[in-house]
């Protein structure tokens, strides 16, 4: 029990520290690395909640694949240091205030909740809760439609990413436009600079 609490607070501190690092660090590259720390701490928390499969998926899919994508794009775009709030608008100034108010409200909602199980460790678990077998059985049985929808979403996203980032000269020119030449030149010039 005590061991569990120690692990919870250590992982929670790491997760909060990683999250603060994402928001506060100026270099986007360090923000990405900070997010990796955050994601791994979250995976530990998932393990505490006996979601073994999701913890593994979090580490493999998020901290592995998605973060590599982020690092590539950050390296491509150039992780230039940007000032944190260079005269941002009203939205930027109100952001932290809004977040603080939201947190207070959510905490009041959780603490004052009439859910009685929320102040316990949760229901008794059956054997194999959160294991890949249990998840797979639910995913291909009760939640088959969600599974299929997710697969279509991934397909559409793959096509969309190719359309967005694909290198096709023909579509980048505006036919008949006066700046036809400059538009075709622009990407090449960028590549030279990069």
């Amino acid at each position, binding site marked *: 029990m005590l061991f569990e609490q120690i692990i*919870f607070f250590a992982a929670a501190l790491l997760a*909060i520290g990683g999250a*603060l690092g*994402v*928001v506060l660090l100026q270099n*986007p590259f360090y*923000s990405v690395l900070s*997010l990796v720390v*955050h994601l791994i701490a*979250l995976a530990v928390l998932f393990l*505490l*909640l006996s*979601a073994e*499969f*999701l913890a593994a*998926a979090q580490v493999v*899919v*998020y901290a592995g694949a*998605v973060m590599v*994508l*982020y690092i590539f*794009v950050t390296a*491509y*775009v150039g992780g230039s240091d*940007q000032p944190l*709030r260079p005269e*941002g608008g009203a939205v*930027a100034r109100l*952001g932290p205030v*809004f*977040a*603080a108010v*939201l*947190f207070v409200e*959510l*905490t009041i909602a*959780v*603490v004052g*909740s009439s859910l009685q*199980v*929320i*102040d*316990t*460790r*949760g229901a008794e*678990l059956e054997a194999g809760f*959160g294991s890949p077998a*249990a998840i797979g059985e639910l*995913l291909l049985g009760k*939640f088959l439609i969600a599974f299929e929808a*997710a697969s279509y*979403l*991934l397909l559409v*996203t793959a096509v*969309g*990413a190719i359309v*967005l*980032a694909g290198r096709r000269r023909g579509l*980048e020119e505006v036919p008949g436009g006066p700046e036809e030449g400059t538009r075709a030149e622009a990407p090449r010039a*960028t590549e030279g600079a990069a």
Partner: protein
Amino acid sequence: MDVAWFVVLSAFIFCIGAAGVMSRRSPLVVLLCLELMLNAGTLALIAFARMHGTGDGQIFALIVMVVAACEVVVGLGLIVSVYRRRLPIDVDKLSELRG
């Protein structure tokens, strides 16, 4: 640990992410903060799955992870194509999505 601890932690992470989305200007960092918010939602879903002792919340969390991965791919594709056209990488200046 009580489930309430996990839920409050997820609320805290969500609020950090919300503050980041509102106050950062680089679209890359805005996407990272969106990831924070989605992960906070995932944590809450898994905490409630633990509370009820059913696997349904975990399936929801898995689907949220899929949606987050899709969002990352489309968002990063947008950033790359914005960069190729030499537009400013700044959410305040990118106020329209016309090519």
